[in-house]
C-alpha cells in the first residue's frame, strides 16, 4: 500500500488542528463483551447499558463472531476498543489496519472508537502488548500528529486510554498525566481514564494516584475502565483476571467526584466468571455513581 500518498502533503497539513467533534454521550454502566457470555446476553437481555467490544476480535472476514456482534448492536449501544492501533509507534502508519477498523465502524456504528496510548511494535513486527513510551516533547509531537492522521482517516475524534506501565524512561520530560492532557488538548482526542491502570502505574512508579487523577482535564474524559490486577509484592501486573479491588473502587469514587457522570464499564479478559458475577460489579459502578453524584436532572451543566 502506498503510505506516502496517504500522509498529509505539506508541513502546513501537520499543523495543530484539533478535530472538532461533539463530546461522546453518557452511556451509563457497561461491560466488555466476551464470547463466553454470548448465549446469556442474546438469550436473556441482561440489564447492561452498553457493551465495549475488542475491535480486532471482529476485524474478520465473516462467520459467527460478526453475526453475534450484529445482534448485540441491534439491542445495545456499542463502543469499539482496539489493542493494535499502535498510535505511538514510530513505524509508518498501517493503513490496511486503519481501513479494517473503518470498515468495522461502518458496520457497528459505535458511539466511539478507542485504543491505548502505547505502541505495539516497529520494523514490521507486532509484539501484541501495550508498550510504554517516554514522556518527551519529541514523543508528544509524534503522537499528536499520528492521532490527527488517524482521526482524519476515520473522520472522527478517537478516544485514548492510559495504559498500565511497569517501567519509566530516564529521558521523560513530563509526567504521564501532563502528556495525556497535552495530547488531548492539541489533537482533540478524548480520554478513556482507566482507573485500575492509574492505580497500577502509581504503585509501580511510586506516586500518588490522586496526583494523576487531578492532573487530567475533567472535560476530556468520556469513559472509565474498571478492572482487576495481580499484585506481585514489589509491582502490580494489569492482568484483568480478578474482580476489581477495594483500593480501585475507592479511586473510582474520587474519579466520579472529579470527572462527574462518565460512561463506565467492567473489563475482564481472563479467568472470566459467569455473567451474573460481572453484573454485580457493573451494578456496583452504577450504585456508587448514583450515591456520589446528584440525580441527572439536578446536575448542573
Amino acid at each position, binding site marked *: 500500500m502506498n503510505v506516502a500518498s496517504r500522509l498529509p502533503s505539506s508541513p502546513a497539513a501537520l499543523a495543530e488542528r484539533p478535530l472538532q467533534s461533539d463530546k461522546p454521550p453518557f452511556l451509563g454502566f457497561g461491560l466488555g463483551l466476551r464470547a463466553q457470555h454470548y448465549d446469556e446476553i442474546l438469550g436473556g437481555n441482561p440489564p447492561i447499558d452498553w457493551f465495549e467490544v475488542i475491535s*480486532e*476480535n471482529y*476485524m*474478520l*472476514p*465473516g*462467520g*459467527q*463472531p*460478526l*453475526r453475534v456482534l450484529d445482534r448485540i448492536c441491534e439491542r445495545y449501544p456499542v463502543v469499539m476498543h482496539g489493542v*493494535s492501533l*499502535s498510535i505511538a*509507534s*514510530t513505524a509508518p502508519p*498501517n493503513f490496511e*489496519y486503519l481501513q479494517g477498523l473503518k470498515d468495522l465502524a461502518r458496520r457497528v456504528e459505535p458511539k466511539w472508537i478507542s485504543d491505548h496510548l502505547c*505502541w*505495539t*511494535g*516497529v*520494523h*514490521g*513486527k*507486532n*509484539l*501484541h*502488548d501495550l*508498550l510504554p*513510551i*517516554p514522556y*518527551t516533547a*519529541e*514523543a508528544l509531537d*509524534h503522537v499528536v500528529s499520528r492521532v490527527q492522521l488517524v482521526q482524519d482517516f476515520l473522520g472522527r475524534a478517537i478516544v485514548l486510554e492510559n495504559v498500565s506501565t*511497569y*517501567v*519509566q*524512561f*530516564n*529521558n521523560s520530560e513530563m509526567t504521564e498525566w501532563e502528556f495525556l492532557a497535552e495530547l488531548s488538548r492539541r489533537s482533540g482526542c478524548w480520554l478513556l481514564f482507566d482507573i485500575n491502570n492509574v492505580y497500577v502505574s502509581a504503585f*509501580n*512508579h*511510586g506516586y500518588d494516584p490522586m496526583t494523576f487523577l487531578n492532573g487530567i482535564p475533567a472535560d476530556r474524559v468520556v469513559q472509565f475502565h474498571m478492572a482487576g490486577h495481580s499484585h506481585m509484592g*514489589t*509491582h502490580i*501486573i494489569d492482568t484483568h483476571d480478578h474482580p476489581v479491588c477495594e483500593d480501585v473502587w475507592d479511586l473510582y469514587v474520587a474519579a466520579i467526584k472529579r470527572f462527574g457522570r462518565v460512561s463506565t464499564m467492567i473489563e475482564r479478559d481472563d479467568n472470566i466468571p459467569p455473567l451474573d458475577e460481572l453484573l454485580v460489579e457493573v451494578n456496583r459502578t452504577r450504585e456508587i455513581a448514583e450515591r456520589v453524584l446528584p440525580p441527572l436532572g439536578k446536575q448542573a451543566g
Partner: protein
Amino acid sequence: MSDFARQQADFQRGILTGDDTVLAEILDSPREKRETLYGVYRYAYGSRLVEALRNDHGLLHSYLGDETFDEMGHAYVKARPSEHPNLRWFSQGLPEFLRSAEPYCNHPVLADLAALEKALNDAFDAAEGEVLDLASMAAFAPEQWNDLKFQPHPSAARLDLSTNASAVWLALKNDETPPDAATLEEPSRILVWRQDATPMFRELAPEEAMMWDEAANGIPFGVLCEMLATYDDPDGAAPRGAGYLHGWITSATLTAVST
C-alpha cells in the same frame, strides 16, 4: 533515526532477543530493579503468543501436552515473530513451521494436525456467502447441465494430509486415546467448510476430490463427468458426478452455479 524511534527499536530488540541495551534508559522503581520490571514485558510477550497458539490449536495442545506444546510454541514465537496487528493471524504459519523445523518435522502428524485445525479455524470466520440449494438447480434445463460451473462457498477449502491426522483429530475431539501416528500410502483428501456457524470436515474419495478440485477451477459439469469416466466405470460417470454434486449442495459447500 529519531531518539524516540531508536529507543523503541532498542526496547523491542530487548524483548525479542534478550539484548539489554535499553535497560540503560530505564529507571529502577522505588521497590524493584529495572531488570525485573522490564522482564514483565519480556515474559508477557512469549506467554501471550503461546497462549494464542493454545487457543487456536487446542487439539494439538492436547496431543503434545502442556510442556511439549509450550516448548514448541516458544520455538515458533522465536522463529516467526508476529507481523500482523491482529493476533488472530499469528498461528497461520504453524503448520509450515512444524513441517520444516527440527524436531517437529520428524513427526509429520504434527504439521498435519495443525493444518487441519488451521483450516477449521479459517472456515469458522471465513467470509459469508450464499448457500446454493437444490431448488436453484431445478431452474436449469437438462441440456444446460453440461455447461454448469460451480463456485465453492468462501469457507470451503481442500487439504491433503499425508498422515492419519484426521483420525487423531477425531479421537482427541471425543476425548479418546488417539491412534498411533501413521504415514498413509495415499494422502487423505479432506474437504473443510462451514455449515451455518460450525466448521466441518470430511474425507473425500480420490475421485470426488479430483472432481471437487476441478470444479473449483471452473471446469463445467460435462467435462467433470468425462474426467470421472477415466477414474471408474465410464457408463456410471454422470450419475456419480450428479451424486457428488448432490452431496456438496446439501452440505452447503457451494455458493453459486452458472452457465
